[in-house]
């Protein structure tokens, strides 16, 4: 059984999203090697993209900085190689489809295996295209995949996503791009409740808009854990990430 799969059986999981190469390549390596000490269960390491459709300003800007820092998919795997010398913290690949296509899907999969990336999130790879074109190859390389579930996803479709999910179901907290702050609304809570009530057979992680202890803990009541992205990056930018993590489980 894969390490990530094991971890995803747990509760109150804390995952963070990090843009590879932000604010510098060195800092990414440092964060990845140290973060486990702060109670982070696994990391989504984002491959920066020039045109991240589903992302808000924080991730857009961190991506622009990372690209300017020379982050490429090749560098991404180099970073992971270095990281792997120090930690076997589970790292989920998160990135848009175009870069994988340019890199070559086969080679991409091999590289993931090499650096022990076990799971992928590709936000602009829809379920249907995955099934038709990518399922076989990802399975061949034993790469798990996680799909998003949003407030607009129908029940029928949630079940289909459940079926195809091999990693976890990424429950998008609200209908929005990444990076929104503010209190978790009644509507969002209803969405959490609905998902919980469906008693899905796959692990669930809630993400988008989780930004403090309160929203993190609330999410944990409904899912296996939560993912903090933009807010974490904001603290990284302020060089205050470690402090931020300590507040979450304090």
């Amino acid at each position, binding site marked *: 059984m894969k390490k990530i799969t094991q971890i995803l059986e747990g509760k109150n999981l804390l995952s963070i999203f990090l843009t590879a190469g932000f604010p510098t390549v060195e800092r990414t390596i440092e964060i990845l090697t140290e973060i486990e000490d702060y109670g982070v269960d696994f990391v989504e390491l984002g491959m920066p993209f020039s*045109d991240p459709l589903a992302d808000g300003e924080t991730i857009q800007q961190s991506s622009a900085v990372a690209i300017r820092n020379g982050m490429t998919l090749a560098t991404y795997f180099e970073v992971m190689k270095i990281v792997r010398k120090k930690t076997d913290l589970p790292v989920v690949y998160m990135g848009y489809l175009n870069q994988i296509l*340019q890199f070559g899907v086969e080679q991409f999969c091999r590289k993931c295996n090499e650096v022990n990336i076990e799971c992928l999130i590709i936000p602009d790879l829809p379920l249907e295209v995955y099934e038709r074109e990518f399922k076989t190859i990802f399975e061949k390389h034993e790469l798990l995949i996680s799909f998003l579930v949003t407030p607009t996803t129908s029940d029928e479709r949630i079940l289909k996503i459940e079926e195809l999910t091999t990693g976890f179901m990424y429950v998008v907290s609200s209908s929005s791009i990444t990076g929104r702050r503010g209190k978790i609304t009644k509507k969002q809570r209803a969405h959490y409740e609905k998902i919980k009530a469906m008693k899905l057979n796959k692990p669930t992680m809630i993400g988008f808009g989780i930004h403090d202890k309160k929203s993190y803990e609330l999410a944990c009541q409904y899912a296996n854990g939560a993912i903090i992205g933009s807010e974490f990056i904001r603290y990284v930018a302020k060089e205050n990430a470690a402090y931020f993590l300590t507040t979450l489980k304090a």
Partner: protein
Amino acid sequence: MSYTIDENGYYGSYGGAYIPEMLYRNISQLQDNYLKIINSDAFQKEYKQLLADYAGRPSPLYHARRLSDKYGGKIYLKREDLNHTGSHKINNTIGQILVAKHMNKKRIIAETGAGQHGVATATVSALMGLECVVYMGALDVKRQAPNVARMKMLGAKVITAHSGSQTLKDATNEAIRDWINNPEDTYYLIGSVVGPHPYPDMVARFQSIISEEMQQQLMEKEGAPDPDRILACIGGGSNAAGAFYHYLDNKKVQLLAAEGAGKGITSGESAATSILGSDGIIHGSKTLLMQTSDGQITEPYSLSAGLDYPGIGPLHAHLIKEKRLHVYPITDIEALEAAMELTTLEGIIPALESAHALAILPKLEIRKDEILVINLSGRGEKDMDAYQKYFTYLKKHPKDELEKSFLFVP
């Protein structure tokens, strides 16, 4: 060989809908319903009536005598510049606003480059009494100022996109993000044959009125519906798609397109997707696009805001691959010259985009008995600033023929 989409929304290997899950419901609703809606009698009646009485269709097919005298052959201009709001964009926005109404949407969003699609969207939104938000790159807000003023007066909110090259690509990103944030009541009214399925097909259908009329008009004027060649410019490719549509399967008709080569295809500042592009995904569609070897989308450049886009519609990517379409890269200067020429020969000031299509002419060998149709996609009022600057430049530097492309700073 066929040039229509398959059941998954692909033209050959191009197209599809590479969208995040947040857009799935809206996109699949559209996929499932657009044909039903637009093929209904009620829709067709309202659409055709608005095209006629509101947009001013049919647009004339004008025999440009002095232009023909210069280049040979018989050159017709399809006068989309005479449409309400000044370009072909209104054909599509009238269609889509009716789709939005059928789907009970209350809020319209759009991206715009040259501002023509933004104006056309703001226009039909006003007509239907719907809220309208238009995203526009910061650079385009500056260089197409007259259109920004028009959108505002029409009651639209214009939101400036400051990311990336601050042009059409970035405006499109922002519009998509808005749609993600507003999944309930909002309709995204895309302005070209780009984006996820069904947009490329839907927009092409709404623009196909151009070639439908062309066939009838050539029948009347020439006794046969087919020209020898059709010329159009390609930003995303909607006016070209409309001009080619009913001729796609008719191989006797050559299809030629112009794309924005900016300062030249080797200059690093261009938008010549057909030459510099490779297969990839942009704005939810698999197509040709300009990108780095690492898959980052390149920031394009063309003086023409409407062509300043690093991608191309999937239909056109397919046509290029199948060698059904030949694309000419046209530099800023070539387009400016062509605009000046049409203006002084025919008394028609073309949009800078359309001027790219005109600039193909000097590159062709034209037989005397040949019939060419150039799709004059829009009028040039929005570009007077660039034209005036070039005009002034030429007055000051009449001799710099070869150096123009380097010396002229718009």
